[in-house]
């Protein structure tokens, strides 16, 4: 596709539910990033994939957060037993090269609201 796409765009979950957020990066992009953005703040790094390898997951806030990119393209961020503090916009970005040396192309984000 022309850009990074994310689905769903909006998700409302009851506290304790599991959610899965999908990211379709730009075709051929090696790097994929997930970020969490709270209202009025900058994006906070969650995790990084280089192809299918998750090389950095130091930003995941708890073991309830899990990300995968099994075939090196589409990625899924899963949040188990959601809590109200998980409410945020989750952004996915991809870039052509490896590491954090190149510009990142961001998707529109998924706005998660946990009630």
């Amino acid at each position, binding site marked *: 596709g022309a850009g990074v796409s994310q689905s769903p765009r909006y998700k409302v979950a009851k506290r304790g539910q599991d959610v899965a957020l999908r990211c379709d990066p730009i075709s051929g992009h090696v790097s994929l990033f997930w970020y969490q953005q709270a209202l009025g703040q*900058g994006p906070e790094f969650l995790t990084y994939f280089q192809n299918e390898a998750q090389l950095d997951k130091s930003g995941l806030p708890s073991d309830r957060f899990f990300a995968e990119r099994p075939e090196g393209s589409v990625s899924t961020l899963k949040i188990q037993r959601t809590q109200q503090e998980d409410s945020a916009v989750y*952004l996915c970005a991809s870039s052509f090269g490896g590491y954090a040396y190149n510009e*990142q192309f961001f998707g*529109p984000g998924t706005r998660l609201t946990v009630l």
Partner: protein
Amino acid sequence: SQQGEEDPQALSIQEGENATMNCSYKTSINNLQWYRQNSGRGLVHLILIRSNEREKHSGRLRVTLDTSKKSSSLLITASRAADTASYFCALGDTGGFKTIFGAGTRLFVKA
């Protein structure tokens, strides 16, 4: 923490004026990027400057990087109402994987 800190937090100017935003950081980086975010287009990459570069231009944008002072500035010349957005500096972590964003400068350009 390597988090970038933008200054000012908010800026309001008239159309046609220049806008300058600053970013300071604490440790070594391998690159610094500027992004713009508005409700219509999400986060968009503006410009990347590498640690061995001092200045870059792109259209009405001019970015400087002073690694000795650990600071960068973004200048938008001849601002337009459409430049109204939040602007973030993003640090390329020396570890190679992370990009660390600051809290942003909210720019409002009055027509």
